[in-house]
Each structure stands twice: as structure tokens, then as C-alpha cells.
């Protein structure tokens, strides 16, 4: 296994780049979708039928491991990074949506009432009464999920959904353990980088 073999560094770099792209895009769309889904799932803001529908959606998104979801997407839309992105979007909506809905359900109703009593529209109540109370936590969940997406984006390649996972799997099957070792070291570096980035983001937003 040692020393690591970086001979195919260009392939490793290409795989890593694709993994990171998968993680970033999946996080972006996942966060974008999780925000409204989480709000809809909050029982203190929405009528029961709305929050239950949103909760059902979140539960479905959380039902399977991202790699299994990736298999489903590979089957549905074919091999490649798009399937990986979709799988991690689903995972992000499930995780952020669930925790965000719980955070919204814990907000202070007094503060909300103060805004509601001014005759503010629903959108106004959300923007001035709800989000200021939960934004730091939302950012916390989102950065955590970004971290998680980076890790998982190295895995979905194993089932053909793009990223560094594919070359890792191939090297493993060919018993090229020095290449496996090189790829693993590269993944560690990227995951570490993601950790640093999300810590930065959290610090900026005071989450």
C-alpha cells in the first residue's frame, strides 16, 4: 500500500474536482429547496395538511442512504455526475429540512405575534418574525450538510454517479493499493478543506 502512488495525479485531480462540483451544486440546490420545505413542515406556521405533506416529503428524502439514492438516480437518468448531484440534493433536503422545521417550531411566538399584529403579510411575517430567529441555526445545519456532502460526493462514484469514487473503486478492484492510498490521502485533504470552509462560514454568520 505504501508509498502512495501519485502517478495518475491528473486523473485523481479530475475526480476530486468533479466530486467537489457535485458537493457544491448539491449543497446549493439542497439548501435552496430545504428552506421552503422546512418552513412548510413547521406545524406552528402551517395548516396541518401542509405540514404533514412536507413532513412526508422529508421522511422520504431521509429514508435511504445517499448511495442507495444514487443507485436509483443512476438507474433513472444514467451514469454521471448529475445522478450524484440529485442524490445529494435529496439527502440535503432531508437533513436540513427536518432540523430546520424543528428549529422553526421552537421560535418565540411572542416575537412572531409582535410582527403579526402590525398587519404584515405572510411573507413579511416570515422575513421579519421567523427568519431572524432561526437564520443562525439554518446556516449551521447548511454548513454541516455541506461537509457531509463533500464526504458523500466521494462515495457516489462507487455506483457510477460521478466523482473520485469511480477511480477509487477501479484501483481497489485491480489491487493497486498504492493508488488507493494516494486517492484516500487526496480525499482527506479535500474533506479537511471543506471543514475549514464551513467553520469560516459559521464564524462569519455567528452560527
Amino acid at each position, binding site marked *: 500500500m505504501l508509498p502512495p502512488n501519485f502517478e495518475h495525479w491528473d486523473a485523481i485531480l479530475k475526480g476530486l474536482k468533479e466530486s467537489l462540483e457535485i458537493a457544491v451544486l448539491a449543497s446549493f440546490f439542497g439548501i435552496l429547496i430545504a428552506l421552503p420545505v422546512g418552513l412548510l413542515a413547521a406545524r406552528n406556521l402551517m395548516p396541518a395538511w401542509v405540514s404533514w405533506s412536507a413532513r412526508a416529503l422529508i421522511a422520504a428524502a431521509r429514508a435511504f442512504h445517499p448511495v442507495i439514492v444514487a443507485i436509483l438516480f443512476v438507474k433513472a437518468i444514467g451514469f454521471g455526475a448529475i445522478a450524484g448531484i440529485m442524490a445529494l440534493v435529496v439527502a440535503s433536503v432531508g437533513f436540513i429540512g427536518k432540523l430546520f422545521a424543528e428549529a422553526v417550531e421552537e421560535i418565540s411566538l411572542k416575537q412572531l405575534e*409582535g410582527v403579526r399584529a402590525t398587519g404584515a403579510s405572510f411573507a413579511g411575517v416570515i422575513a421579519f418574525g421567523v427568519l*431572524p430567529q432561526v437564520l443562525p441555526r439554518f446556516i449551521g445545519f447548511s454548513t454541516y450538510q455541506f461537509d457531509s456532502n463533500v464526504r458523500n460526493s466521494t462515495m457516489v462514484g462507487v455506483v457510477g454517479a460521478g466523482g473520485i469514487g469511480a477511480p477509487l473503486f477501479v484501483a481497489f478492484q485491480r489491487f493497486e493499493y498504492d493508488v488507493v492510498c494516494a486517492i484516500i490521502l487526496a480525499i482527506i485533504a479535500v474533506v479537511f478543506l471543506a471543514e475549514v470552509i464551513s467553520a469560516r462560514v459559521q464564524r462569519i454568520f455567528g452560527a
Partner: protein
Amino acid sequence: MAQAALAIRNLSKAYAPGQFVLRDLSLEVAPRGVTAIIGPSGSGKSTLIRCINRLVEPTAGAILFEGRDLTRLKGAELRRARARIGMVFQEYNLVERLTVMENVLTGRLAYVSPLKAWLRRFPPEDIERAFRLLDEVGLSGYERQRADSLSGGQRQRVGIARAIMQQPRLLLADEPTSSLDPKTSVEIMTLLRDLAAGHAIPVLVNMHDVELARRFADRIVGLAGGAIVFDGPPHALSDARLAGIYGGESWLH
């Protein structure tokens, strides 16, 4: 009385079927001045105030305001009516993580589009007015401070500014000084009365402190068991009448 700013007709409220907290209550509020509602704990003061802007759903009766029955409004119409009624709370009910300025501008949310609300884009005249109001309540220079960094008295000043920012035609206040020390209470009541008078807004305020009510109200309404048992000017509120409102008299001496 000239055309009343608010007319409550035969209002009843029961939180649980058959258990009435307000019983067939009628009350008119003049277009000017401070009306204080006093009464023992549980007599229905908060319920009465909150029925008016429908933070609590009335069970029966009518509440006439600007030519409409508030009890029948729904959705956008209800929000429009609420925008014309300012409310000041005992625990201020500011959004803690927003700045003083944002809390005051909340009073204009009913008038800006959802997109502008999300982008925090308020018309310049709103922002100017907010600055002026903050000056009037004695908080100029505090615009960018977060609400949770203020003292109780300062928070209530922001609460009052937010309510006046709505340019309301009626101001409701539910025990606005009950979380404050006696000196601050007097300052806040002075501010509430003078600001409302300056903007020609009638005030309906719940109070626990009878002396404070006597001092600041033009009219006192005594509530007991969900019905009005006294209604008159402060000087008519004798010990005997007080005993009638609160029950017994040993506590008076």
C-alpha cells in the same frame, strides 16, 4: 359622544364551550384620549384587547372600526384592519435579533410588497419617519443596536415606535408597564399618552396599577368577571367603586 373610533357590541368570548370569559360586553371608545381598563387578574382584560385585533377569536358580538365589523374580516382584509391598529405588549414582543430600526420598520410591513420586505427595501419616507419617531421616543442613535441589547424601558420605547409607525387609528396596549420599575412605568405612560395625543390616536390600555391608571387615563373602565362594572372619569373611581371591581376592601388600607 362624537362618532366613536371603536364600538364593541355585545362581545362574548369563551375559550372552552360554555365558559365565558367575556359576557355580552359593549364599549365605545372616543376618537381621542386614553381609556384604561382595570380589573382583577383573570377578569378578561387581555382577552378583550386581543379580540379587537383578532389575536383572539371572539365567540359572539360585533366590533365596529372604521365602518367595518372586525369580527367578520378574513385574510387580506383582516391584515389591512390590523395595520390600522397599533399594539403595545407587556413583554414588548420585539424581534430580538433584529435592530431597533428593523423593529420600527416592521410597523410598515403591511404596506410593502413581499419582495421588498425580503430585500429590506422600504420607501425613503418610511425610513425618515422611523428616524423621527425614534427621536420622539428618545432613542436616536440606537438605530443599529439589536433589540436584545436594550433595557426594558428602551424596548418598550421601540415597541411604541413600531406601533405608531403603522400610522394607526387606534392604539391597544396590554399592560405596557407591568414589566417595568415604577419610574420607568411613569416615563413610558407619559410617552404613550403624549405621542398618541400628538398623532391624534385614541388609546385603549390594560393596567394593573390603579394609581397609574388614575394619573394617565381620561376614562377608566372596570372589568370584573368579563363584564363592565365601572365606567367613568378617574375622579369618580372611589374606594367603594374600587372594592366593587376588585372585591372586598381590606386590601385598600
